[in-house]
């Protein structure tokens, strides 16, 4: 008992030190990036550097302290990694919006990042035990579907760039799909956690699931297609179906689901290609972005992204010294190309590695937890983040057709930031375990220590 307690205490101290050091490093790197973009852009240190630096440090370290208080045994790496991604993204947004003479858009994103931090802390404070969420399987599921389909509602749904994924409430415009996706992941973790044995056991002929067990997968497929058809949002549709298939496979361990999922995905993608001209345009642009007759037209955004990356080379032009603003929507979909141009291959690799760290920690949390719901929740949240990074990065790199999804924590977009903060908060809470239980245990531990020492 005492040995275990001592180990726990030592582990906690090490974790605290690691987390704090990493957070400080993340703050320094973020503020440095902010200073450098100003130097590169205007040959002088940005005017608000001190205010920005202090605010960033106070919020990031305050957030770290709140996390430590609310989720003492939380993974120590996740939070600093998220801070660094947010800080780097913010510096890049100040650089991009500064060049376009709209620094206020970047300031707005800084506020959103702070709001995201607040939401992260609030989530940790409200959700003292993730398993609380397990009790509201269908309520959460319905809420998720409702949010997903909200943009279709006439009057509040708004179409931007051919995709109907925004809702406009008059005072604020946001993408409910981002939030809906998280709720659906919680629902799936809960649903699959309860049904996994049933779904895994039921095997019909050829190792395929029985017809009655096909219900959920067909339903998810239908929902994904609905999102594609009604909202014309390829990215959201792909992510939704992708995370569902992955969670189903992890829960059941049955390859048949994965294969079936891929087949259904292929069918869906093909039907989508035939049915929608905007999907055809995307595919055509992906394949022929560099053709001389398309490079300035359909292929413009993709070719400009490639040009930015190629111009950046190994080490990049330096922050503020390239021309990433030539790329349309560089702040949202194409921010990775901006990193590529100004920080080079090394910069892009660094950003991608940070995401790989998030994915790695998320899956590690899933392995370490013993509760099915917690495991599946960690897997789902991690998969949503990782898949989202892959889909947009591969789109920008022209490995797959471009689907406009933001780079989590980095891209322009308030909803995305808040949704990512909730996702990180859920991972932190899952890794830390229930708050009240830990607290009680700590008291016991202290008593135990005292007893042994005496």
């Amino acid at each position: 008992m005492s040995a275990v307690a001592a180990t726990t205490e030592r582990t906690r101290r090490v974790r605290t030190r690691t987390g704090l050091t990493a957070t400080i490093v993340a703050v320094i790197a973020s503020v440095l990036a902010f200073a450098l973009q100003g130097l590169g852009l205007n040959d002088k240190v940005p005017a608000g550097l001190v205010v920005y630096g202090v605010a960033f440090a106070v919020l990031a370290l305050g957030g770290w302290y709140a996390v430590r208080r609310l989720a003492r045994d939380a993974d120590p790496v996740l939070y600093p990694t998220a801070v660094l991604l947010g800080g780097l993204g913010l510096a890049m947004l100040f650089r991009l919006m500064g060049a376009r003479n709209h620094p206020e858009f970047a300031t707005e994103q800084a506020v959103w990042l702070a709001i995201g931090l607040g939401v992260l802390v609030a989530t940790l404070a409200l959700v003292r035990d993730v398993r609380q969420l397990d009790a509201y399987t269908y309520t959460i599921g319905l809420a998720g579907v409702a949010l997903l389909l909200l943009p279709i509602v006439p009057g509040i749904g708004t179409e931007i760039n051919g995709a109907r994924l925004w809702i406009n409430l008059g005072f604020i415009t946001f993408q409910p799909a981002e939030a809906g996706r998280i709720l659906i992941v919680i629902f799936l973790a809960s649903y699959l956690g309860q049904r996994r044995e049933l779904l895994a056991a039921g095997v019909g002929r050829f190792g395929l699931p029985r017809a009655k067990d096909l219900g959920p997968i067909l339903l998810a497929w239908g929902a994904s297609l609905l999102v594609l058809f009604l909202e014309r949002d390829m990215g959201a549709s792909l992510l939704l179906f992708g995370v569902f298939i992955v969670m189903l496979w992890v829960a059941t361990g049955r390859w048949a689901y994965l294969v079936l999922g891929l087949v259904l995905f292929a069918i869906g993608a093909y039907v989508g290609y035939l049915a929608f001209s905007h999907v055809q345009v995307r595919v055509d642009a992906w394949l022929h972005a560099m053709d001389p007759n398309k490079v300035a037209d359909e292929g413009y955004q993709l070719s400009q992204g490639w040009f930015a990356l190629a111009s950046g080379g190994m080490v990049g032009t330096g922050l503020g010294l390239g021309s990433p603003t030539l790329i349309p929507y560089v702040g949202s979909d194409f921010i990775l190309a901006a990193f590529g141009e100004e920080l080079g291959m090394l910069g892009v690799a660094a950003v991608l590695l940070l995401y790989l760290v998030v994915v790695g920690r998320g899956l590690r949390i899933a392995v370490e937890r013993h509760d099915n719901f917690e495991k599946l929740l960690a897997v789902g949240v991690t998969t949503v983040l990782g898949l989202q990074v892959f889909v947009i990065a591969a789109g920008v790199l022209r490995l797959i057709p471009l689907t406009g999804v933001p780079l989590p924590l980095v891209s322009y977009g308030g909803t995305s930031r808040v949704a990512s903060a909730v996702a990180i908060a859920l991972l932190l809470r899952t890794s830390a375990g229930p708050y009240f239980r830990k607290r009680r245990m700590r008291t016991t531990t202290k008593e135990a220590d005292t007893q042994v020492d005496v």
Partner: protein
Amino acid sequence: MDRQIRRLGIAFVALFAVLFAQVAYVQVVAADRIAAEPANAPREIKAEYAVERGQILAANRTTVLAESKPNQDPASAYKYLRDYPTGELWGQLTGYYSRIYGRTGLEQAMNPYLSGTAPEFATQNLTDIILGRPKRGGTVITTLVPRVQATARKALGSHQGAVVAVDPSNGDILAMYSNPGFDPNTLSSGSDQQIEKAWQSLISDPEKPLVSHAFQDLYLPGSTFKTITASAALENNWPPTKTWKNPHHLELPQTDTHIENFGDELCAGGASEVTMEEAFAESCNVTFAEIGMALGADKMTAQAQAYGLCRIAPVEGEAAPCLNDTIPFILPWETGRFPEASYFDNNEPALARSSIGLDNDLLNPLHIALIASAIANGGTLYDPRLVTEVRDATTGQPITTFDPKDYGHPLTSTSAAELRQMMVGVVEHGTATLAQIPGVTVAGKTGTSANLHGPPNAWFTAFAPAGPSQTATIAVGVIVLDGGYLGNEATGGQVAAPIAKQVIESYLRQG
């Protein structure tokens, strides 16, 4: 479940590995090819405009011909703008640096140095990155002398034409002005619409201000070509005192045409014989047609080629393309032209006309100034040099230097000395007395060539000081198109020689 989660981890690593591989492909492996796509031009131009492009300086290293100034418009995409402080004075040499129409002149020829991308800048750029200094292009130092250029412009006045001044000792271009010129500022700064408008007016101007008469156009050289015929004669050991028959008209074989002297005058007062030096001073066509025919096509073409005139197979009514490479120059230029020997087979009249700068002979002021320089320096033909060195803008350290290069030796020093004496005669008692400068011996040769479109073009080439033991410091080539102020009555001696005189004076007075 844990097994699947671990497999999921491996799957993610694999997905990200694919991303890394593609990043390496786009950013390193194929980067140069992708970045060089024409559609990437706006990014490359913007990157260029973000660097403080190097200055172009005169030989005195203080007069600025071109420089980059910070853009005062904060909303502009371009950090620096190119400025040419003296407008059109140097326009055809600096060329323009336009974000819409590209680069010409030195801006193009020296671009890797001006933009700091030449390989010589590698260490400097690295130092700049380490020290956090902004990248700056190199300073290009030219051979140009502002007061000579200004005198050339003033002397030409409103007349179309060009003046070139060369240092005979090394081929350095001291001045090279052509009227009309253009102001490169109009193509380098301003809104896109302003630049496009300026461009339209420049390319639709019938006087073609973007093309320099000094080195980018060609004209019949007329009697200035007699310097080459005389060189061939001297190299053939026919001394200046050798006498030649002096008929009023030279009847040409194979035809019923003849060659007559300028204005159908009598050479040497109508004496039955005339020396080459006297015929040179008076610019007698008859005599030099005789000399050319006596030398033969092989010797004439060999001498013209030795002076760097390229071989051509003549084409009716236009300047035929060169069949061989000749004198190199940092700016795109037209070298003089002379027909290949086979053109004169069974065509004696053509050889006679070619010996006096007619038929298919072509020269421009730069080329004739180089020929005069070779005569002046004792027989060495130098490549024209416009840039002497490039220096680092921050440290002032030399980055690269361009040494003088000789192209060849078209004549011996003995022949050069004899020809120099003949050219002195032209100025002292021949056709170019208006080029005399008190206290300075000037050597020269006039030319007046027919012009299909109007009054004749007036030529003059000269060098000074040209006394027997003196070293010439300046050689000039002048052309005034369409007769200048004299119109149909124009001669090289009256219209072009006074301009050369002013330019030489301006250089020698303070030189």
